[in-house]
């Protein structure tokens, strides 16, 4: 375990000077050019910017799904950017909830099973406790009566709500959402956004979301505009 480089318990998540190149050979692109950023518990941050500016890339790095070519990432004061795959995997399980643009759910599993999946990996609750918590979460997102539906039997908005419930399952300190309302209608977008922010505030979680929707962005605590791989 590495000692905190700069003690700053205020932050749930922090990164400094992130650089990321993507592609090979001729097609190699300098996608992120020194991104620095911090997210506080209980606060919602919106990352906005034109398509292709590097928002998703930033989020994947922050979610420890990808590794930066340069720069540092701290999760609750713990330097994660150069730790092992196993450590980053464990940190994802415990501290990070990810909501993807396309409701990434497990096919062949019920809504309840999907929400229980991260809890099963964490293994802190009994089977009954996990099921209770998953049911409560699904109720929070308004799917209390559809817990046993297979994901294929849910609408896009419903699937995205299951994904949110799943992201909240292990009570992570950080919720990262990549255009969570990107392919939903206005009404559903509002529902999803309200849900995310409400639950985050209640639990004191740091939320970082990418959005193209100016209405949503303006309702966040902080807006970080991005262009060409940098915050501006």
């Amino acid at each position, binding site marked *: 375990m590495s000692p905190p480089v700069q003690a700053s318990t205020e932050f749930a998540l922090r990164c400094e000077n992130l650089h990321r190149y993507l592609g090979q050979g001729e097609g190699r692109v300098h996608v992120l050019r020194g991104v620095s950023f911090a997210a506080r518990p209980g606060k919602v941050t919106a990352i906005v910017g034109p398509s292709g500016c590097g928002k998703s890339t930033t989020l*994947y790095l922050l979610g420890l799904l*990808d590794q930066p070519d340069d720069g540092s990432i701290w999760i609750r004061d713990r330097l994660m950017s150069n730790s092992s795959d196993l450590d980053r*995997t464990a940190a*994802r399980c415990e501290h990070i909830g990810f909501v993807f*643009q396309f409701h*990434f*759910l*497990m096919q*062949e599993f019920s809504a309840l099973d999907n929400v229980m999946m991260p809890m099963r*990996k964490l293994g802190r609750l009994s089977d009954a406790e996990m099921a209770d918590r998953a049911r409560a979460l699904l109720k929070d997102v308004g799917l209390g009566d559809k817990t046993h539906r297979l994901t294929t039997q849910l609408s896009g908005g419903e699937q995205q709500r299951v994904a949110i419930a799943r992201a909240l399952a292990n009570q992570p300190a950080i919720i990262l959402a990549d255009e969570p309302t990107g392919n939903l209608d206005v009404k559903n977008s509002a529902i999803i956004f309200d849900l995310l922010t409400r639950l985050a505030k209640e639990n004191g979680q740091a939320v970082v979301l990418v959005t193209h929707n100016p209405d949503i962005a303006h309702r966040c605590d902080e807006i970080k505009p991005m262009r060409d791989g940098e915050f501006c």
Partner: protein
Amino acid sequence: MSTNLRIALRFLTARKRSMLMSLAGIIFGVGFFIVTQAQTSGFEQFFIKVILGTNGAIRIEDKIQATTFTLAAAGHDPDASKFEVETDRTGRKYIAGVEDPGLIIEALRRFRNVAGASTVLEGSVIADSSFKNDSAKVYGIKLEDHLAVSDLAEQVARGHGSLDDFRTTPQGLLVGKVLADRLLLSVGDSLILQAGTEQRRYRVSAIYVTGVSDIDKVRIYMHLGEARSLLKKATGASFIQVSLFDRDRAPQDAVQLEEILRHGAKSWQEREVSWLNAFKALQVSAALTVSTIILISGLGMFNTLAMLVIEKTKEIAILRSMGYSRRDISQIFLWLGAIVLGIGTVGGWILGFAVTYGVSKWPIHITGIFTAETFQVYWSINHYLIATLCAAVVVMTAAVIPARRAARLEPGDIIRGTSQ
């Protein structure tokens, strides 16, 4: 139930049809492996039973030419003789027959593994029934001794007539079924045997069937005393037939007996080496042939799992993003292999057991080196274990490669690829 197993079970249903094909392959592979092994070793065991029941476990014949000590010394004090054992086998000279069978039998009694010993005087004769004549071999025996070293009683029971008649009739003969048929003999008929100038009349007390046509067509058992006068050999014996408690120790025992008794001793394994090797070769080749079924279903399994990894990359990325490790991912795919393997082997056992049982009731008529009325099978847990091992190696090897590939996938790459 472990979470990875739970996920594996759900993934299993994603490619139901090709999984079922691989499963069927493993069931048939394991099942047929068991059946062919049960059969080939069934015939081998039957052959062994027949040769032990006719010619015994060890045959002692041909005296080794004495060099440094006498037979008497060896017979009375086998331990002492060990110190003077001649090691040079190639330079050894043999004198045909056993000079003093009584002495040898007495010495044999000291061996713990020896169950019985019977003195046999063998000679060639011309057998003359009122219709035909044919050459034959007479075996002069002491009935009770010989019953202890062979299945003669059972062989007579399979033919005609009774041992009691032979026991009480000095001129009685036990004639092999094939020879009796050839000479048109039935129980109670008389028969003239001619050896050299000597010619005597005998009576068929019983007709026996060993099932080994080479024996049934030439061998005639008679009382040892009668054989001595017919063949004009007042003393000695052609060989001594020995039965053992533990037949598997025959080769070692034969070596020991040879050194101590100063007579050539041959175990059944040595006498029948070419047949036994043929059975072994048959068994191995059947195993190899049937293993290809398992191998092919292993390839099918590999293909199915490799496709599943591609089909489930998104799921793999989701699991990884939720905190499932590379090891969890590879475990899920190994579980898939293990589930198919488990069901496949148990199914294969049941199929193998059922077919083996069915085949054992199958009436066929085999004659040749032995005679059998049904397919011979030998039940051995080893056939099941070897089939299982074979399937486990093939299926798990087929699962390891896709599992490792699945574990190597980078969640970031997958998600970037799909969300773009």
